[in-house]
């Protein structure tokens, strides 16, 4: 049963990793303290829910729609609001994005009410059995897509010209501007990319997690926990952090009880903040 719990944790953790990787680009790399990250995950979940119930679109297909819509939404939010205060204190980042988060949460509540919504897929109740271990199909598909998204994101940041520009800005934006990088446009792009990844994370979460307007708050804190645990500025670290939090949460809820998964997550977070604030893979990559 221990092995089964670990596997469940890894499957869940891969989705957490995607949530964290989006924030890792925004906060870890661009240094924008985005307290609305979870709300963008929520937006991705609602997009997927709507496409599924109205058009019957399979959630794993609507990941593309989530990506594009959240990318545009993220760039718009950056251009209209965050851009004006991006050079100001962290406190203003936090307050402004918390305000954006409040707007998104309550917009969702106006449209969808406070009901906990879930979607029912034909294949989400089937398990794959390998040597006595059960792996849920929906989890497995989400896991595979999450891995692909993570790999693509890593490749984009490490290997492409734009990715190099993003990393250059995170190291020294004045020098980046001097070497011909359009800092505003690249930052907007990076912010949009982070939000788009959050949207995809929402899509991948929906088959296994309900959505209601308040899930955003929980995912925001979770995303920060993962980024800090993995190490600031390390996209790979966020992936590891997400997997680790997934395993910790599953172990705690199996051996101690459901509510302990949150308790243990918060305690691990506080301990990391106190004793290893640079995180597991801090400052080593990206």
């Amino acid at each position, binding site marked *: 049963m221990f092995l089964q719990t670990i596997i469940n944790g890894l499957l869940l953790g891969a989705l957490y990793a995607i949530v964290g990787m989006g924030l890792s680009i925004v906060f870890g790399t661009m240094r924008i303290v985005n307290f609305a990250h979870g709300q963008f995950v929520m937006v991705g979940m609602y997009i997927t829910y709507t496409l599924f119930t109205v058009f019957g679109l399979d959630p794993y297909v609507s990941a593309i729609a989530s990506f594009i819509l959240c990318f545009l939404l993220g760039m718009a939010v950056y251009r209209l609001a965050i851009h004006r*205060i991006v050079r100001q204190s962290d*406190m*203003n980042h936090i*307050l402004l994005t918390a305000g954006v988060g409040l707007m998104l*949460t*309550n917009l969702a509540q106006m449209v969808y009410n406070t009901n906990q919504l879930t979607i029912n897929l034909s294949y989400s109740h089937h398990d794959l059995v390998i040597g006595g271990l059960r792996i849920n199909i929906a989890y497995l598909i989400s896991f595979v897509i999450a891995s692909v998204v993570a790999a693509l994101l890593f490749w984009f940041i490490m290997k492409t010209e734009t990715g190099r520009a993003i990393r250059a800005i995170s190291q020294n934006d004045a020098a980046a501007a001097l070497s011909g990088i359009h800092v505003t446009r690249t930052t907007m792009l990076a912010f949009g990319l982070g939000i788009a990844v959050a949207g995809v994370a929402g899509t991948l979460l929906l088959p296994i997690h309900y959505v209601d307007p308040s899930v955003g708050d929980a995912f925001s804190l979770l995303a920060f926990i993962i980024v*800090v645990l993995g190490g600031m500025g390390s996209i790979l670290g966020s992936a590891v952090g997400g997997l680790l939090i997934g395993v910790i949460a599953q172990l705690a809820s199996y051996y101690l009880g459901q509510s302990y998964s949150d308790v243990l997550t918060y305690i691990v977070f506080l301990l990391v903040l106190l004793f290893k604030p640079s995180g597991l893979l801090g400052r080593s990559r990206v």
Partner: protein
Amino acid sequence: MNRIRSWILPVLALIVFAVIPFTASFYYQQIFFYIFLFAGVGFAWNLVGGYAGQLSLGHAAFFGIGAYTYALLAQHIGVWPALLAAAVLSTVSAAPIGLICFRLRGPYFALATIAVAQLLLVLATNQFKDLTQGAAGLLVQGMVSDPSLYYWVALGFMILAFAITALLATSKTGYYLMAIREDEDTAQTVTINTPLYKLYALLVSALLTGVGGAIFAANLGTIQPNDVFSGAISNQVVFLSILGGTGTLFGPLVGAVILEFASDWLKNALTGVAWLGDPNAFAFFLYGLLIVLVVMFMPAGIVGTLTKWWKGRVARVQSQRTTAAGV
């Protein structure tokens, strides 16, 4: 002369506040109750978040500890000793929380305070269910015989909170805190014991916030963890202080008056509008928009911006006078 003039506004406000309950209905008395209560907690938050510049997003921790201490003790040791116990326990709890969180700076401090408040919320809901009754709710003994008397309790609390924060903010401690806000390293180099003063501000802030939580619980009559430990409480306190102006004496009161009246008016005005969906949600949507706009265009808040404008005007008038005489 200047000293007397600076007293005019507070005294006028006090006279108005003292007259209100004799003319207003119970409904409006409750609105004023929440204005005073959250203004008082806002004053308390302002010490840490405004003057010392440490963005605490977890003041619900102290609010909830105060509320539950009062709720659990009031029927055993009496109402006022329970209120005292709430003050003491929330202050004591602030010591370890402060020692942990103040090791961190900037966004990490804010995140740690959120994590502490969330941790307490989960613990109070689940692990300490036997004590708190969890989400089922806990009956709370009232503080005063007549519900309309809570108006005075909250008013007294706000005056106390204002007096304490005003005394601290205008004393040497207040200037130390502002120095920490502006540049913590420099403050440290000029021999200010920054950890000590930050902790001092947090202890006072937690004491007042805990008392606020106890009064809140007594007025509500029954509480569950989500009422007092939630992020909504933490954010409410922060947002009204931002709107009024952080690091200003009257900011939280101005913010509380505007937010309470605006949200009350909105809820009443929008109840019939079907296409908006939940009017409560729309009110909070506008609330979020307001925060975004304030941070973008008026980061000093209402009181801060007005003060800056007034000082600029006075300076301009004076410079005109001096040049006219000098030439």
